[in-house]
C-alpha cells in the first residue's frame, strides 16, 4: 500500500501569546528567538495512523510531504524517525503564506509529480491558522473522496473502514482507495521516535522541489482572501475571588456565593 502523509511545521501552539511577533504590514506570524517550531499535532496523529497500517501490511511505503518557506530538519524529519520512508519538500520564499487555496494547489501539484497513492492522510487542521481546509482542497483537486475526523482506520484488502467522529459518537464509513482521510487526536498518542529510527532518519535525504519542478503557475499562487487585521482579543478580567479562613471555608463560601447570585 502506498500512503502519503501531509505534514506542516507550526509555531508551538502551547507557547504564550507574547512569544510570537505579528508583522502588521503583511499580517504574518513569526516566532520570537528561541521559540520552537513543532510538527502540527494532528499530523503526528496522521503519521501514527500510517505507521499502524504499515505494521499490519508490511509492504506499505509511507511518504511524507510538506510545503513551506523553510523547514527545520529536526522537526520535519520526525515522521522519518518514527518509521516513515520518504520525505518530499516543496520549498520557496513565495510559500510563506497561509491561503488554503494556494497551499492545496501546491500540495496537489506536488502529489501529481510524486505519484499515485492509495491513501492520503492529513491532520484535521493545522494549529496555527485552524483552517481545516487544505485536505478537502487536495481531495477536490485530485478528484477523490475525503473522509474527515478519523478516530480509527482499518484496512482489509481494498476495503477501508474509518471510524469517523460525530457529535456524541462515531460512524463507521466504508470506503476504498484512493481516498483522503483527516485524522484527529482521538486516534491516540503518536509514538516516540526510538534511537534506531533516529539513526535511519539521519540517512534519508529529502527530495526538495522548487515551484518550477512541480509546474506551478502564478495563478496557483493567487490568494483568495485578504487579511485586514490581526489583534489580541481584549479581556477585562474582573474575577471576584472568594475569601475564607482556610480552603475548606473557601469552598463553603463559594457555594454560598453561588446561591446568593442565584446561579445554583
Amino acid at each position: 500500500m502506498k500512503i502519503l502523509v501531509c505534514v506542516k511545521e507550526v509555531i508551538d501552539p502551547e507557547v504564550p501569546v507574547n512569544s510570537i511577533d505579528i508583522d502588521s504590514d503583511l499580517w504574518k506570524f513569526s516566532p520570537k528567538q528561541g521559540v520552537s517550531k513543532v510538527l502540527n499535532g494532528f499530523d503526528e496523529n496522521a503519521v501514527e495512523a500510517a505507521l499502524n497500517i504499515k505494521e499490519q501490511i508490511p509492504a506499505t511505503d509511507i511518504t511524507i510531504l510538506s510545503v513551506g518557506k523553510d523547514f527545520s530538519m529536526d522537526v520535519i524529519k520526525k515522521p522519518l524517525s518514527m518509521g516513515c520512508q520518504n520525505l518530499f519538500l516543496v520549498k520557496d520564499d513565495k510559500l510563506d503564506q497561509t491561503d488554503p487555496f494556494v497551499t492545496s494547489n501546491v500540495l496537489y501539484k506536488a502529489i501529481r509529480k510524486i505519484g499515485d497513492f492509495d491513501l492520503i492522510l492529513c491532520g484535521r487542521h493545522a494549529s496555527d491558522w485552524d483552517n481545516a481546509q487544505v485536505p478537502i482542497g487536495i481531495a477536490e483537486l485530485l478528484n477523490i473522496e475525503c473522509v474527515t475526523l478519523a478516530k480509527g482506520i482499518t484496512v482489509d484488502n481494498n476495503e477501508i473502514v474509518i471510524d469517523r467522529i460525530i457529535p456524541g459518537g462515531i460512524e463507521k464509513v466504508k470506503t476504498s482507495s484512493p481516498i483522503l482521510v483527516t485524522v484527529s487526536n482521538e486516534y491516540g498518542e503518536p509514538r516516540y521516535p526510538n534511537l534506531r529510527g533516529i539513526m535511519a532518519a539521519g540517512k534519508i535525504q529529502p527530495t526538495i522541489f522548487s515551484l518550477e519542478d512541480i509546474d506551478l503557475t502564478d495563478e496557483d499562487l493567487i490568494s483568495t482572501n485578504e487579511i485586514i487585521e490581526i489583534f489580541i482579543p481584549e479581556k477585562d478580567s474582573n474575577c471576584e475571588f472568594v475569601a475564607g479562613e482556610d480552603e475548606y471555608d473557601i469552598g463553603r463560601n463559594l457555594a454560598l456565593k453561588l446561591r446568593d447570585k442565584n446561579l445554583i
Partner: protein
Amino acid sequence: MSKVLIFTEIYENDFDSSVLEMISMLRDLNIDSKNIIVAALGDDLYSKESILQNIPVGKVVGYKNIDTNQFNPNILMKLATGIIDQLLPEKIIIPKTSVGQDLAPRLAFKYKYGIVNDCLSIEESDNHWIGVRPVFGGNYLAKVKIKSDKQIFCIRTKVFDEFDEKNINPSIEFFEYEHNIETNSQIIERIQEQSDGIRLEDADIVVAGGRGLGGPEPFDTLEEIAKLLNAAVGASRAVCDSGWKDHSYQIGLTGKDISPNLYFTVGISGASQHMAGCSNSKHIVSIDKNVDANIFKDAEIGAVGDWKNILPGFLDTLQNLVKN
C-alpha cells in the same frame, strides 16, 4: 441587496436550531429574513414540509426524496452543489455544525468561492463583509476579507441568540435530484455513546475538570456535584487525551461547544483552545490553585487553592443548600 443562502440540516422532528442563530446574525447586518433562502439538507424532505414551514425566512429549498445515508458528507456535497447550480448565490452562510464545517470548504473548493471559516461574527465595511475569526487556537482574532464576490462564511454556533419571530413563513420549493447520488464512501453504522444524564450541549449548568484533578477518580466528586445541580460533566482535552474521561466529554476548539448559564471548572488552566468551546457561557466560576491561571481572566467568581480542600467545603454546603 442580493439574496443570502443559508445551509441547514433537517432532522426527523425538527430543523437544526443553528439556522435561527444565523438569521439573527444576518439581521445584525440588516438582512431582512424575507430575503434569506434556506437550503435544507436531509432525508425525504417531502414528508417534512411542516418542519420546513417553521423556518422563519422568505424561502426554503431542498430535494424531495433523497436518502442522505445518515448525512453522508459526500452525498450532502452533491445535493449542495445541485442547489448552488440552481440558485447561483453570491453569499452563502453555513453554521459550523458537524455537518457544516465539513461541507463549507468542500463547496468553496468546488466552486472557487472564497471562504472564511469559523467566524465569530461578520462586520460590514464599505459594503464588504469581513469575517472575524479566531486563529492560533483563539489567542488572536483575524479580520478576513474575501477578494471575490462569491463568498462563503462558516459561522460558529452558540454565539448568536436564536431569532424568535414566529410569524414569518417561507415559500417552499422542492427540486428533483437527477444525477447519480452514489458515493464511494458509505456510512454503514452509527454508534452513539451511552450518556446517562444530561447532554453537555443542552445543560444549563456544566461542571468540568482538568489535568489539575490528577486522575480519573476525582471526577466522581464532580459527578456528585453535577447530580445535585442537575448539571452535565465535561473535561479538558488533557483529561481526555490521558484517558481519564472519554473524548465525548471534551469541551473546546476540537471538542464540544457549550453555552450554559453556569460553567464551573476545577483544575482547568483556561488555554485558549479550551475557552474556544465555552467562552459563551453566561457565568464562569473556577477553582484553581494558580491565581494567575488564564481561566480567571474569563471567570466571574474564583476560588484559589487546592481542590482537594476546597471541594469538600463546597460539597458539604451544597448538600445542605439543596436539602433546604
